[in-house]
């Protein structure tokens, strides 16, 4: 048996990231006493460098390596770039937050980097084992990050909850994986697709496996009826970790879904399409209605996120490359908007006050008109009101659903969009129309965060006025 050395070139960003992260992990133990922020800056520099590596080797062709277990294409590159971008933003917010709440530690950033590595692997996985590997790298980092604030019972409870339910979901996923492997005799997505298309796999076992896989995916993405963990974990976790949890991993989750369902199981499209339609409608409806009664903003945004997942699934339901592109655009915008939304909460968090209740935002227009305006941008973007970019995200998925012949589904989607507009408006109402007894000025933790929030929120507006480049980027990557 010949041993062929695989081509390492496509995986260079991952390898560099792993090397740098390990280095930082070790160095941190020596740095942390004397140079408090060294780890932070090193982590940011590593991310920038990895981002640069991806851009400089950006390719439009598809390269498969490591005996078919790893794939690099423009789809993967774009998603990785946005994962890097959102993580850079997340780290900027986190540093100030961790200092403010006095649990600043270098591990946060090294764990964050490991999480990014896991996401990279998920995005580029081309077989079931690699996918599982990536998922676990990411999830373990997240469990640890949530539990980092040891003095907070809520945080520890959230970590436990996330860990137990996450493990359950992974179990489901693995069970499904094993059935698919049993039916097709292959773990590589492209191979599986061929075998299923040729009709050489047992249909019953396949369907059985598919159901478990979809359940696992729905768990990870937070789609109804497997969404229970999301509100609790989002609320209980420290805001900076929620910020991380709610943004970059969604991009990876989307990629996982794409790789498994579209690359691996396109032959079962009629089976998963029906499942996704149900999950999508449920998610949109639950997200719209349950969010209305929340008075905690993080919890409300969790339910709103469940609704957004429903919209992302619409792109899959269209079951054509344009549909997946629209979902890709949606998930990227969702991550950016999430950075803005949770970033706002982080930025305004003062010692002793997490600033995560809607009542905290009452009268914000009097107390800090600029931040109120930025929050207005974010809320209207999430609600999908033009000219903010959130509108185009919804527009594209709905467009693709209509093109695929599911006009009724589009009607359901827009109705839930209108219902969910209500709770976003509730936040705007609190900021602009309600009076707060306390008229003292609310400041951001630091002026750096003021800039960061403003930058992301204004980006939502600018991308809304000029959305064409990002749209064509997403569409060309899957064409």
């Amino acid at each position: 048996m010949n041993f062929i050395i695989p081509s390492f070139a496509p995986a260079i960003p991952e390898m560099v990231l792993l090397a740098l992260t390990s280095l930082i992990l070790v160095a941190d133990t020596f740095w942390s006493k004397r140079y408090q922020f060294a780890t932070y800056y090193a982590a940011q520099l590593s991310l920038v460098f990895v981002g640069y590596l991806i851009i400089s080797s950006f390719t439009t062709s598809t390269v498969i390596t490591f005996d078919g277990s790893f794939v690099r294409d423009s789809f993967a590159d774009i998603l990785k770039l946005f994962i890097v971008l959102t993580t850079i933003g997340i780290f900027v917010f986190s540093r100030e937050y961790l200092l403010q709440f006095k649990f600043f530690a270098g591990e946060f950033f090294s764990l964050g980097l490991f999480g990014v590595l896991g996401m990279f692997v998920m995005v580029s996985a081309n077989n079931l084992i690699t996918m599982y590997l990536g998922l676990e790298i990411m999830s373990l980092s997240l469990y640890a990050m949530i539990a980092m604030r040891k003095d907070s019972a809520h945080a520890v409870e959230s970590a436990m909850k996330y860990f137990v339910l996450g493990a359950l979901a992974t179990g489901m996923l693995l069970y499904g994986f094993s059935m698919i492997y049993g039916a097709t005799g292959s773990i590589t997505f492209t191979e599986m697709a061929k075998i299923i298309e040729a009709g050489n796999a047992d249909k019953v076992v396949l369907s059985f496996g598919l159901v478990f896989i979809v359940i696992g995916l729905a768990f990870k993405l937070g789609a109804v009826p497997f969404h229970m963990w999301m509100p609790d974990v989002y609320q209980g976790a420290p805001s900076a970790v929620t910020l991380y949890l709610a943004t970059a991993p969604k991009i990876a989750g989307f990629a996982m879904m794409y790789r498994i369902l579209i690359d691996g199981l396109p032959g079962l499209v009629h089976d998963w399409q029906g499942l996704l339609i149900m999950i999508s409608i449920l998610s949109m409806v639950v997200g719209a209605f349950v969010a209305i009664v929340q008075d905690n903003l993080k919890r409300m945004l969790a339910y709103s996120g469940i609704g957004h997942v429903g919209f992302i699934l619409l792109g899959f339901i269209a079951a054509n490359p344009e549909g997946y592109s629209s979902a890709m655009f949606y998930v990227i915008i969702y991550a950016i908007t999430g950075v803005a939304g949770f970033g706002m909460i982080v930025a305004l968090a003062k010692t002793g006050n997490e600033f995560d209740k809607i009542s905290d935002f009452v009268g914000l227009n009097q107390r800090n008109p600029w931040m109120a305006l930025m929050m207005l941008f974010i809320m209207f973007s999430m609600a999908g009101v033009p000219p903010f970019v959130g509108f185009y995200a919804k527009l594209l998925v709905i467009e693709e659903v209509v093109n695929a012949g599911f006009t009724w589904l589009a009607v359901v989607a827009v109705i839930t969009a209108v219902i969910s507009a209500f709770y976003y408006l509730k936040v705007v109402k609190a900021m602009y129309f309600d009076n707060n007894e306390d008229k003292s000025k609310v400041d951001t933790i630091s002026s750096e965060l003021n800039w960061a929030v403003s930058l992301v929120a204004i980006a939502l507006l600018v991308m809304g006025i000029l959305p064409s480049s990002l749209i064509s980027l997403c569409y060309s990557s899957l064409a």
Partner: protein
Amino acid sequence: MTLGLPILSTLIWLPIIGGLLVLFLGRDRDNFAKWFSLAIAVLTFLLSLPLWTQFDTTTAAMQFVEKTPWIPTFNIQYYLGVDGLSMPLILLTTFTQVLVVLSAWTVIKERVEQYMGAFLIMQGVMIGVFAALDAILFYVFWEALLIPMFVVIGKWGGPRRVYATLKFFLYTFLGSVFMLVAFLYMHYQSGSFSILDFQNMPIAMTAQIFIFLAFLVAFAVKIPMFPVHTWLPDAHVEAPTAGSVVLAAIMLKMGGYGFVRFSLPITPDASMTLDWLVIILSLIAILYIGLVALVQNDMKKLVAYSSISHMGFVTLGMFLVYDIVQNTGSTQGAMIGLEGAMIQMVSHGFISGAMFLAIGVLYDRMHTREISAYGGVVNKMPWFGFFAVLFAMANAGLPGTSGFVGEFMVIIASFKANIWYGFVAASTLIIGAAYTLWMVKRVFFGPVANDNVAVLEDLNKREMMIMWTLAIAIVVLGVYPAPLIDVMHSSVAQLLVQATTSKL
């Protein structure tokens, strides 16, 4: 003439950018905010005049066209242009804006820069709605308008403002999302988002019905038509004066404009099949809402209901087309109905604006809109009384004012369609006169009612200027509407052809 600038883009973006500047630079500098806003509003108005002077009345084609790719992936264009249907509405917008800024001069004391900025941004967006020829561009402007309006009503409105503004936002949002789905469906069929392409594409009957209904929901909420009108009285009563003026004078027109730009030309067969629905709803609006107006105690609410009733004429005039063509075999009468509807829109813009500004004058002095709080105002404010009675007469449709022209044309047309339509529509001449004149009688005439009224002061120079401008506009349009009809004529003729040609 316009320094080589693309005129429509200038009209859209100048107020928006000006509004943003006011928002960012005007904090705690109220005088700057006011004068700067006034300058922008006047400048925009002056720049919009070439639309009128250089307008070619002989063609129905789009003029002042601008077209550049915007989102090429979906063939979405930044596509602007005006014809005889939209151009008068743009001028109405720029004209009203000047009065809106002036009317807020001393009234708004809190966060002046946010108020002025919001209204300037709204102006640009509304011009965008009337000028957009790409469906997505149209939708973006259409929806973007909700955000500043939401904030304006909710922040500077009356006691129940939060309830009113949420209702306003959700109603209009719900209405428009269906329109969006209809746009997407038509894009799927035609591969284009251009409104002109939509107008030329064939559409099957079932699809037309659904598209028509989607449009109907969107536009009916905006106009508003019975039974989705309930947001309007709430929003009006709670909105600040300028908010009411913009709502009544321009935003309601967006709904009417939608019918002539989308419903009639894009879904002519469905319009023909379902015209009874719109006609019945219009007649209910004219008759029933007119009666509702009669019993109001609040002046603003009264004018709000009267607006709904008057907008009933607009929709009635538009959808009479099919019955008239069927009865008389010619499009002559239909033409009168459509033109009457269009004139009614412009005229109602002036009159309702004038009415709300007049109520604003009283409210600023007495801080109440209850009719019963007044009485004998004319004794203390003779000039104001003169204007108010003039506007009220125009609202009641007195010949010689602009209110008469549109209503009269629609009533003539409705008699050609069906004698009972004409009968119900003509009843407004009585009901409208009743509720308007009764209000005038109770507020202005009789002895001075109480001590508060006794100390009222007459109009100051700024208010006088606003009132004169509107009074002149209303009378000129009433006596000599020919220029306006000329501008519309070619476009209405083309619309009539589109509306009566089957697309199956």
